[in-house]
């Protein structure tokens, strides 16, 4: 019955409480740095630029006093994949590859372009993994929602529902343990009635149908709770507009410097990437 306890395994990034300059940044500053790292990392093709991004993320992790090993523990399972990709890249030379040949081993030639594309694949993944892992380690749940509102505040002048999005994210964070608990009790209730998830006999269609009495009640319960929460908020005269905050982040000099630094970093990387060939 060990697979009934879903909640134990729920882990998509966990806040790590440390006293560091990175932790002390405002939510907006953390978001800007996240974007400054992942936007270039998803657009840039040059391996050198991707290496710089990964190195910056690593430097920030050290500054935040988060062990890089903790952020990289997901990298090991992907290594075999990278190995296979590497092997195929080397064996099958893409047609029209005009780049200089580095090594020739019998029928296999290793060209600069092949090495570059393998390095880019690995480095892009490394950069993304470090940036996103670091971000989830240094930001609390409440700040995740508040940061979204701060980040998108300029767009609210053109009618973008920045506050609504932040509230939805805050509600989602609060609902995750509730939904996980509901799921666990529904699974146990169905198991007590003799249903078998995963291990059961029968064809795939039968197995797929076994999910219906799981997903429908869990979703319905979430909708019911959402309705109760909405009514409770309305009963307390909640209005999405013109709200004040319980937690106010004072934006000091360090924070302003960090925000401007993030924008400058992103701009420099994107401009430089346009000029570097490899």
């Amino acid at each position, binding site marked *: 019955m060990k697979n009934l306890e879903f909640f134990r395994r729920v882990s998509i990034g966990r806040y790590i409480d440390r006293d560091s300059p990175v932790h002390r940044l405002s939510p907006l500053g953390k978001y800007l740095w996240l974007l400054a790292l992942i936007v270039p990392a998803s657009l840039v093709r040059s391996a050198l630029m991707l290496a710089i991004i990964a190195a910056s993320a690593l430097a920030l992790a050290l500054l935040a006093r988060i062990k890089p090993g903790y952020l990289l523990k997901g990298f090991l399972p992907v290594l075999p994949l990278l190995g296979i990709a590497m092997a195929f890249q080397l064996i099958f030379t893409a047609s029209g590859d005009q780049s200089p040949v580095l090594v020739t081993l019998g029928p296999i030639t290793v060209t600069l372009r092949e090495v570059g594309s393998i390095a880019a694949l690995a480095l892009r993944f490394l950069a*993304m993994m470090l940036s996103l892992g670091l971000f989830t380690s240094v930001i609390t749940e409440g700040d995740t929602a508040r940061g979204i509102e701060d980040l998108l505040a300029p767009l609210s002048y053109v009618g973008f529902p920045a506050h609504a999005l932040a509230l*939805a994210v805050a509600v*989602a964070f609060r609902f995750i343990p509730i939904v996980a608990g509901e*799921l666990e009790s529904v699974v146990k209730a169905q198991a007590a009635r003799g249903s078998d998830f995963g291990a059961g006999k029968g064809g795939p269609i039968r197995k797929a149908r076994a999910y219906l009495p799981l*997903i429908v009640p869990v979703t*319905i319960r979430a909708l019911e709770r*959402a309705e109760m929460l909405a009514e409770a908020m309305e*009963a307390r005269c909640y209005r999405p507009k013109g709200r004040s905050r319980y937690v106010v982040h004072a934006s000091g000099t360090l924070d302003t410097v960090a925000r401007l630094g993030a924008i400058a970093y992103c701009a420099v990387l994107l401009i430089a990437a346009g000029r570097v060939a490899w």
Partner: protein
Amino acid sequence: MEHSPVKKIVTAGALGAVSVIMAVTPLGFLPWFGGTSLTIMHIPVIIAAVLEGPVAGTIVGLIFGVTSMVKAAVAPIGPLDPLFTNPLVSVLPRLLIGVVSWSVYKLFRGKLSPLAAAAAGAFGGFTNTVLVLGMLGLTAASQIAGTLGMDNAAIPALLVGIALSNGLVEAAAAAVFTGAIVSAWKGIEHAAGASKLSKEEL
């Protein structure tokens, strides 16, 4: 049925939580023929769009997309996970599921509610498959080719093949689940019959 903005937002948050739970537990994957699995993680997005409109659908789509991106980076399990750390693949396509499902649902003009919900589910599910595979083809064709040991030129055909085989089945699954959940929820709403604060004029 016009809902208050608070209810739209809160429902979007709750369904966002359901999609996060589906993404991090085995609940989001239906076992299917040959050991492959069908994803049903986009179903909360479709339900939000059908029940609360395109804005709620897009918010849940954003939560779903960001969850799949963070999960691919923090706890990768599959061979394609490194490609999903790219927000162009994992986030952008998911923002459009809600809009498509809502438009399809609206085409029925409130008639045949269960059928409309099923159609919205089918189109929403197919949107997810087609756009995600399309973005994979645009951003990572050479990496997929490298991983599978195929020629670059064969990749579009491969992706179309997956879109037709997996995509149609996933669309059918989404139709069944969306239809079931929406009719169950509407049934509850009518049967309760109690006056609700959220439906009163503000």
